[in-house]
């Protein structure tokens, strides 16, 4: 169970997140949509403290953090309960595909190397990249890098997986394979919070869709209701624009 309460973030006085409340059930897939610059990515980045929120509480599994009083220890615990998939993949450039996946298992979770290597190879097989295990990120296509990025997040066994526009930086030809892998992750009943502009994908994968605008959650609902019968005028306008 994930619970976010009153999450607030300002950049230089300007509020980017203005009191976000959001609950996510175990195994639930929540997709966040909304115009650019509306705080979607910041919300994700605040959930694992890549950006430090100014106020609010975040509860992921057994970890509960109050932003105003968060210690280093709290932040590490929260990050270890979550996994993050970056828009620009952010694979470790000095490590092979396999080592990228092993890194959290060995360094953070303390598993023996051989066990971590076995797990990494199993995850790579799931992402369809078994034969790329020893390739460095620079030798992989954008789509392949992002699949390794998702694999890195899968291997951790996090309570919550965060996806920050995972297909936005990709050439169109690689989008399909990344979405396909995300569907596989969803089938494993992984709790997912996804920021995306892929409306068709949102409709298909989401249990609930969240529409954000101006740093607030404006409307929440199941995809067919929210996308086909939007209530809020801003959401209606947004949906007309993205077609």
């Amino acid at each position: 169970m994930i619970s976010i309460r009153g999450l607030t973030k300002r950049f230089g006085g300007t509020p980017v997140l203005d009191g976000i409340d959001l609950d996510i059930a175990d195994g639930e897939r929540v997709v966040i949509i909304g115009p650019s610059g509306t705080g979607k990515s910041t919300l994700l980045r605040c959930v694992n403290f890549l950006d430090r929120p100014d106020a609010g509480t975040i509860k992921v599994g057994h970890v509960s953090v109050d932003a105003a009083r968060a210690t280093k220890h709290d932040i590490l615990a929260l990050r270890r309960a979550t996994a993050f998939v970056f828009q620009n993949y952010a694979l470790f450039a000095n490590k092979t595909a396999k080592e990228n996946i092993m890194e959290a298992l060995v360094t953070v979770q303390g598993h023996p190397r051989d066990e971590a290597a076995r797990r990494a190879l199993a995850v790579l097989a799931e992402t369809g990249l078994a034969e790329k295990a020893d390739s460095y990120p620079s030798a992989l296509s954008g789509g392949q890098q992002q699949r390794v990025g998702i694999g890195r997040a899968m291997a951790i066994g996090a309570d919550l997986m965060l996806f920050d526009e995972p297909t936005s930086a990709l050439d169109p030809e690689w989008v399909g394979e990344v979405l396909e892998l995300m569907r596989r992750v969803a089938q494993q009943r992984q709790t997912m919070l996804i920021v995306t502009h892929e409306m068709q994908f949102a409709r298909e994968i989401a249990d609930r869709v969240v529409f954000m605008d101006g740093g607030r959650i404006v409307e929440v609902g199941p995809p067919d209701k929210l996308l086909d019968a939007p209530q809020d005028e801003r959401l209606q306008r947004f949906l007309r624009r993205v077609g």
Partner: protein
Amino acid sequence: MPALDIDYMLGLVPVILGYVPLTLFMAAVAMVCALVLASLLAVERVIRVPGLDWLVVLFISFFRGTPLLVQLFLFYYGLPQVVSFLTQINGVTAAIMGLTLHFSAYMAEAIRAAITGVDRSQWEAAQSIGMTQAQMMRRIVLPQAGRIAAPTLVNYFIDMIKGTSLAFTLGVTEMMGATQKEASGSFLYFEAFLVVAILYWVIVETLSQGQKRLETHLNKAYAR
């Protein structure tokens, strides 16, 4: 101008070569120590530990701002007068200490610049999987910074090898000290110092070849 005494020079080569191991030993030990110290200093400069930062800034400023020869004299002749346990310090140890501290100050700045050159997304990816700051530095940031800083660090190593010649002023008989002794016996100063100059040159050139191989190796993760 009288002709060079080639036979004397050729005879001198094996004599001086015998001191190459000591020169390389001092340079290698000082380089390893300086790398470790410089990495620590550089990381501190990047994350700025409160209460420690000013000390690091002062350290770097002092060891960059004063001549190596002065620092060596300070350690070898000066410190034992005020710090009693240093009275046993020998010239080789003092030279290694001096080279380490002196070059770590320069190398710290090179490594600090390289650390800030590592893409921000690499830091964030490390944080996102729950690494501590130390783990992030050791496993992700420093290895990538090392690649960026490698050409500069090799240059400092070359400088350091040549810097070991100053150890002769502390009474250490290394390549330079040995040459000095030979020359003052034969009075063939030009021949003797020409030989030692060429030997330093050969050592440095050999290392420069190694540098190319090192850079190829370090770039292998990034080559397409």
